């Protein structure tokens, strides 16, 4: 891979839109896609006729309940008679669909791309969590009766063990994000809680408790990406996509070091190289880091080199990651606060970076002046890191 010094085809984000994130939404999957796409196109000042290509991201088909989901939902994505594909990296899909949108434009093939991520988890009865049972290896792991939360708990406990981190510090993340989400119009779980609330909540798989985790949600998010020429016509302040990176580790997660997300380190490195960033901690102004569980925000901060190993909880405790801190993390409220319709959640983070850089985040706007933002998602069996860096 090489570092291109000349940005041949700069890609800009010119519009974003999203639906509410809720446990159950009445609209069907394609209706949600349409609502989000409509919002994004309106913001960009475009119609679907102006769009060349559509990229769709969604997590397991089992949630929506249709095989070859992308095919069935193409109408909702406005993809009629257009180039259209679905990309997929498990939970990392949210940010990854944005990366895919990036290469559609950066390749020179498309000039205006619509990126949509959607998830409808409420379809699954009696509880969506059972779908996750099927991500595990059918021979070596499924027979043990695996539950998804086990692997998070195992990783969390290893992380706590290695760096001697207390649950109180991890709970601070949940407190912060849910509080941040009170200012997000689409948020599902914006609320004021305390560390004690988290520590007293139902224990699911020790050390994971109910308030440590993000909810099941329905929702959709859409973004519009264009090339430089179109961006300059449509807006005075396009937000540029300056770096992308992603990396997938081996499926044998039990053979790996669980205390540090190596895959994210590589994904981050790839994106930083492309964006010309040498000192992430200094050059990244704020970040939307994937937080399906509260400890994951800390884990990912360290993987992205935004904190030294074991340092992330200290930064959180010291308030560095608050909206008025030196390195705001998840000013949107993250998955813990806004909701977790898997793929849409990742794209929501990209939309947040976009809105923050445009200064349009209202009450969520971080205090410091921001030029460079990062959004990141994660997925599979503790396997994939997807990173996107945007600049004003």
């Amino acid at each position, binding site marked *: 891979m090489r570092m291109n010094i000349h940005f041949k085809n700069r890609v800009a984000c010119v519009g974003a839109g999203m639906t509410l994130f809720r446990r159950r939404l009445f609209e069907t999957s394609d209706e949600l896609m349409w609502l989000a796409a409509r919002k994004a196109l309106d913001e960009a000042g475009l119609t679907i006729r102006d769009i060349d290509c559509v990229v769709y991201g969604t997590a397991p088909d089992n949630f929506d309940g249709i095989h070859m989901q992308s095919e069935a939902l193409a109408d909702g994505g406005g993809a009629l008679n257009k180039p259209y594909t679905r*990309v997929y990296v498990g939970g990392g899909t949210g940010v990854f669909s944005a990366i895919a949108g990036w290469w559609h434009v950066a*390749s020179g093939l498309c000039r205006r791309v619509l990126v949509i991520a959607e998830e409808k988890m409420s379809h699954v009865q009696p509880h969506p969590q059972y779908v996750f049972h099927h991500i595990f290896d059918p021979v070596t792991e499924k027979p043990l009766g695996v539950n998804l939360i086990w692997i998070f708990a195992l990783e969390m406990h290893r992380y706590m063990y290695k760096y001697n981190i207390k649950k109180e510090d991890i709970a601070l993340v949940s407190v912060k994000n849910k509080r941040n989400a009170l200012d997000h119009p689409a948020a599902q779980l914006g609320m004021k809680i305390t560390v004690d609330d988290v520590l007293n909540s139902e224990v699911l798989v020790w050390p994971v408790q109910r308030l440590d985790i993000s909810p099941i949600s329905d929702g959709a998010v859409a973004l519009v990406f264009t090339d430089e020429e179109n961006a300059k016509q449509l807006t005075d302040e396009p937000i540029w996509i300056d770096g992308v990176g992603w990396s997938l580790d081996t499926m044998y997660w039990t053979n790996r070091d669980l205390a540090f997300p190596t895959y994210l380190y590589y994904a981050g490195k790839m994106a930083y190289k492309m964006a010309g960033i040498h000192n992430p901690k200094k050059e990244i102004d704020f970040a939307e880091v994937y937080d399906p569980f509260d400890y994951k925000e800390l884990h990912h901060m360290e993987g992205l080199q935004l904190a030294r190993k074991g340092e992330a909880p200290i930064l959180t405790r010291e308030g560095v990651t608050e909206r008025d801190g030196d390195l705001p993390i998840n000013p949107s409220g993250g998955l813990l606060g806004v909701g977790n319709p898997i793929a849409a959640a990742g794209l929501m983070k990209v939309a947040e970076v976009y809105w923050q850089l445009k200064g349009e985040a209202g009450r969520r706007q971080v205090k410091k002046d921001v030029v460079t933002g990062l959004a990141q998602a994660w997925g599979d069996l503790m396997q994939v890191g997807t990173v996107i860096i945007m600049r004003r």
Partner: protein
Amino acid sequence: MSRVALVGIGSTQYRPETSEKNFKELMYEAASRAYIDAGIEPRKDLDCVITASEDLWEGLAIFDEYVPDQLGGVLKPVFTVGGDGLHGIIHAYMLIKTGYFDLVAVEAHSKASEIETLQKIYHFAMDPLYIRPVVDNPYALAALEMMNIMRLLDITFDMLDMTIMKNHLNALEWGSPYARIYDYDNLESSEYVAQPLREVDIAPHVDGATVAVLASEEKAKELTDEPIWIEGVGWATQGGRIERNLHNFPVSLNTAGNMAYDMAGIENPMAELDFAEVDDRFSFRELASLAMLRLDGGDLMEMVVNGVYTLDGDFPVNTGGGFLGNGYPLEAGGMMKLLHAVKQLRGEAGFNQLDNPEKALVAVRREVPSNSYAVVILAR
């Protein structure tokens, strides 16, 4: 801007059963052959790995988890595209065109033999509100499409029979276990699956895996004297819910084809291309594809009756025997056709070898009941 070339391709045999290997071992077989063919060290050289798959074909949710190890992609940029292998090729093309990626591998495979409830999976792909309660057999949808296409394009059963016989004959060279030497009597006595769709009109399922390696122009010239250039790509979807679109032509194939032709600077496809490998999941689809891709010379019947599409004709179609002759490997369909096309262009097609072919088109459609198309134009 740099061009994109195919520098390596490797495949397992396509056969009805592959029970001695699990899917990972199948992928590894195809991948190691492709990397040797390309002359690369995957751990060092690969910039990205793409797999084309759908969870339910595999029976494993989030299939991309199971991909990197056996393709050399560990801790590299790897992803899945929910589409045919040819969609993967198109993404690889775009990635290389960005200028940040030099070597991208694309993989697709099929383990259809291991899916005991295949029919249910097709059913699960249909619209849950309007279609699933009404339609049981997915081939019924194909049959409706067939009636429509035959009427609108003036296709007769004789034309279909000729197509079937041609493809089976071409597939014999590949040692395909499904290839047969048919005559008209065999075809006439074929049973209806869903009238007018007969058993012989349907490509049976097959297992196998193929990996292709694409490179930037610079890298391609380092690796080989004879890269196969990707001159044009096109892809489009007719929208979801095939049930709502049956009264239309597969217009999106026309859109996808034109996108590829424009990119490749082709104005008169039949004159400027030497052969084509097009979708023949069902016999009528080959003829419909040719019409939509402007490869019907204005009169489809005349072309078929005069043998234009046979190996000896002016414009051979499905020189490898297509899906009808070799079987249909789910999302690896496009890769199988790509393999046939590349073998032809390289002069490695054995008994089926055409005389010095230079440009080819590969077009595929995804499995029933989907409606997405991918087109790639290759040139020596």
